[in-house]
């Protein structure tokens, strides 16, 4: 054994040690490297006291655990995004001192919100499941439609911070059903918004079934009940609607509808409809341009997963993840199934690219719900956010592979058609473990990046502030229709900035039974100028706006060529 080493050997040793230390430091730094996407949980700072209830009757009614979505929209036209939370109702067998009700929170800026439910008159006490906001009467403000277990509700915005329940005169209560997703769309290009309501199952208190798994009580799935057809209401333009479910071709199909989204997937200038069905094939209703629909889900390749298996589909969003000018679909699903990404091939067909893109990562082991294609790091491509949480509140008792409360998932788009699960490295906001359902995405603090609001079943919501370190530029676009519907719902926007070409559409209702993103957001990366913005209005013409600066909120008015905006 040698106890001494020479000077040369000592020098070599020292250098090795330094090199090893450097390598270790690199490894450590890499281990702690923050993701380009970072969310901070600011729920407690917001002053939001809302707590969701699912009715929790103890009977385990199927309409409890599916819970609800939420709406993010500017109800008072003051330029910031407000929040409308849906709440469960007092179901048979439940006891509440006061019946639970939905809640509207006004955004006061600086992440402070005020409960204005009472003043607004929007505290519906029905068992809320889905919501969409749209200007159905074209008076310049956004109205609210709520899909309940029970009669649905239409609140007309009076334009002064208050709403009036106009359900009865509008004729859209939809009968006593277990409602699910809902969307406003201009199906017939006549300049006003029609209304689609997806119906879940033919559930009543009388035909309720309580399940059991391995000796534990559980909520049964939708196949226990019959499936109803969905409902489609045509806007008569005078504040009333006509049920056109039959003549439109919609009611020929029965499904267990949940979340839904409307968009022009085939680029033919009209709005089509995607309905996520729970343990049944998804519907893709192709519009012939006049409000008549053909269900093409199976042939288009979006009805099932890669193996032809019907999924427990929950929520759906559409967006152009690969910047090829076509709307793709992302559908969330049940445990032991991956959420699915369907790539639009442009010829009416879709390819399930979940596996090849990695877009299903982190979604197999639990139940997934709200979702959105959003460019969180303003780098010019859309990432995917997925709300997670099991629907069986006691699942840990009989399946230790999963949990009722679970962290949400964020999949970062790497720009080459692939996604990476960066949830673990994306800040404390992604470590919150609750049973999430609806999720909304909007720029809540008007700082140019997109924040997240999540409705959690039986708990307080989660509000995530986007603190991503990205220095990417952005632009946000608000549309004003003059001949077509006022909110520009269904309009296609194409933003060209250097080599980057991005598209989006204005949707009213999307994701898991919720509503968000009417102010379109485009991440521009390093591009410092927008060459052009082309707007194709639904049922109208095409306007092109040129040479626009970045990092701005713009309002583009139909028929105009000048941009109204602010930095």
């Amino acid at each position, binding site marked *: 054994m040698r106890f001494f080493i020479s000077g040369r050997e000592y020098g070599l040793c020292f250098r090795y040690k330094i090199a090893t230390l450097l390598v270790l430091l690199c490894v450590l730094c890499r281990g702690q490297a923050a993701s380009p996407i970072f969310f901070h949980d600011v729920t407690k700072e917001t002053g939001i006291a809302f707590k969701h209830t699912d009715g929790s009757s103890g009977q385990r009614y199927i309409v409890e655990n599916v819970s609800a979505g939420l709406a993010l929209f500017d109800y008072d036209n003051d330029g910031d995004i407000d929040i409308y939370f849906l709440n469960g109702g007092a179901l048979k067998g439940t006891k509440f001192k006061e019946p639970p009700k939905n809640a509207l929170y006004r955004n006061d800026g600086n992440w402070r919100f005020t409960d204005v439910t009472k003043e607004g008159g929007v505290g519906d006490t029905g068992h809320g499941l889905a919501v969409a906001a749209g200007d159905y009467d074209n008076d310049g403000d956004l109205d609210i439609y709520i899909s309940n277990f029970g009669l649905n509700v239409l609140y007309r915005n009076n334009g002064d911070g208050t709403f009036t329940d106009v359900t009865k005169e509008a004729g859209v209560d939809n009968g006593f059903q277990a409602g699910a997703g809902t969307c406003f769309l201009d199906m017939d290009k006549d300049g006003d918004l029609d209304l689609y309501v997806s119906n879940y199952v033919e559930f009543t208190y009388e035909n309720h079934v309580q399940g059991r798994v391995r000796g534990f009580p559980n909520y049964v799935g939708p196949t226990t009940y019959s499936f109803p057809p969905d409902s489609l209401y045509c806007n008569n333009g005078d504040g009333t609607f006509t049920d056109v479910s039959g003549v439109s071709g919609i009611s020929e199909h029965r499904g267990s509808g949940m979340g839904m989204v409307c968009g022009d997937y085939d680029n033919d200038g009209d709005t089509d409809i995607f309905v996520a069905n729970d343990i049944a094939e998804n519907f893709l209703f192709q519009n012939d341009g006049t409000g008549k629909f053909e269900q093409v889900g199976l*042939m288009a*390749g979006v009805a099932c997963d890669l193996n*032809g298996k019907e999924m427990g589909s929950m929520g759906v969003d559409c967006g152009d993840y690969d910047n090829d000018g076509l709307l793709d679909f992302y559908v969330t699903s049940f445990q032991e199934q991956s959420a699915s990404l369907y790539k639009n091939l442009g010829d009416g067909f879709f390819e399930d690219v979940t596996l090849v893109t990695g877009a299903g990562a982190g979604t197999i082991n639990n139940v997934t719900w709200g979702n959105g294609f959003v460019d969180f790091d303003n780098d010019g491509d859309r990432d995917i956010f997925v709300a997670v949480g099991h629907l069986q509140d006691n699942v840990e008792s009989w399946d230790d592979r999963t949990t009722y409360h679970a962290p949400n998932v964020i999949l970062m788009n790497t720009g080459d058609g692939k996604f990476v699960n960066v949830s673990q490295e994306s800040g404390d906001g992604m470590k919150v473990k609750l049973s999430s359902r609806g999720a909304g995405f909007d720029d809540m603090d008007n700082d140019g990046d997109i924040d997240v609001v999540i409705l959690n079943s039986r708990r307080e919501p989660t509000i995530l502030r986007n603190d991503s370190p990205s220095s990417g530029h952005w632009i946000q676009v608000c549309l004003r229709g003059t001949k077509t519907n006022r909110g520009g719902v269904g309009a296609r926007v194409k933003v060209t900035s250097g080599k980057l070409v991005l598209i989006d559409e204005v949707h009213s209702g999307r994701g898991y039974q919720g509503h968000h993103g009417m102010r379109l957001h485009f991440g521009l990366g390093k591009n410092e100028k927008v060459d052009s913005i082309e707007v194709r209005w639904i049922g109208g013409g095409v306007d092109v706006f040129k040479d626009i600066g970045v990092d701005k909120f713009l309002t583009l008015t139909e028929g105009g060529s000048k941009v109204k905006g602010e930095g």
Partner: protein
Amino acid sequence: MRMSEESGQQKSRNTNSLGWSGKLAAKRTRWFFLSVIIIVGAISGFLWVKSFSSPKSDLIQKQEAAAFLREEETKLAEQLIKDFPNSEVPLVLMGGLQAKRGNSSEGMIFWEKALRLNPNLPNVYCKMAEIASGREEFEKAIELWKKALQINPKMRGVRNDIARAFIWLGKYNQAVAEAEEEIKISPRSAISYYLLGQGYLQLKEYDKAKFCYEKVIELEPNHPNAHYGLAGIYMRLKQPDKAREHMDVYKEWKDGRVKSVWNVDKAGYDVVGSQKSLGTLLMDADRLYRTMGKGEKAEELLKHTEKIFKKAISLAPAQPHVQGYMHRELALLYLRMKRKLPEAEKFAAKAVEFEATAANYYVLCRASEMNGDLANARTAIEKAVELEPENMMYRQTYELIKSRSR
């Protein structure tokens, strides 16, 4: 004391001041309260008695029956561990029981203990791999399946599982290689060709994928997933008519699916599932006792299980689908153990009496056949084929019985 005297005097003065009409009113009030007490008492008594005499609801009966069976299954598994402390078999069984009940972490502990006693247990590695795969830990799962293959390279189906995991991981070339290896040992495996097709589909090698799906259909003409896959390929190859053709077959299969009664009766499913599970464990236990030269113990166990099954049958509600299934399982228990064959036939006939399903007729056929009653066996299997003409096993059995009864 003083106070009470004063109030008593006051009360007496008040009563005296009431007069005749007041007294009458007071008397009526007393009678009224007395009557109310009697009526309330009578109703409560009636309800109390009724609670003892009224039958339990179907749901409660099913819950009790399932809980009873589960408890017995646990007892049996624990007994095996006690009786065979140095054997890995009870540990493997207990691991399986835990995993089946959703306690996969507990299950893993038992399996790891079993592997310490005997590291050459490929099936245990496969079970552990399934758990890892269910937790989205595909790399770990592949490692475990490969360990199983190291012990027994000819194990069928394991490479399919590995291929599936590689597909989840997006490693399609590896998936293809594994499926091809599996086909070498199972050349008529439709699932292997299907997975091979899925691998090629992801690699965008559509012609190869098409060949694989066609091979699946050659092996299993009504394989719905292969038709679905082919429809997708023809759409990509811009042949919509061919695509529609295959999609129609897929749709026909989908629309033809019959909604099982167990979809609605989850509590009933819990009972019959627990019974089936206990039956399987019993078979394993019987084998173990006999292997270890404890035949007497095996006999005792059979008698005990018979009692358990019969008690569970009496606990379960009289719904035909539940009773039919439970009687059939008892018949199957006798048949599998090749004991009390006349009893088996009796229980199988009772199952058919409760519910005339193809499955019940099939078990009756087997029981009759094993009792040498070929005529009855033929009648039963004819009924089974009539009810489920697509079922290959029933058809083959029918042909066999027919040839033997000539």
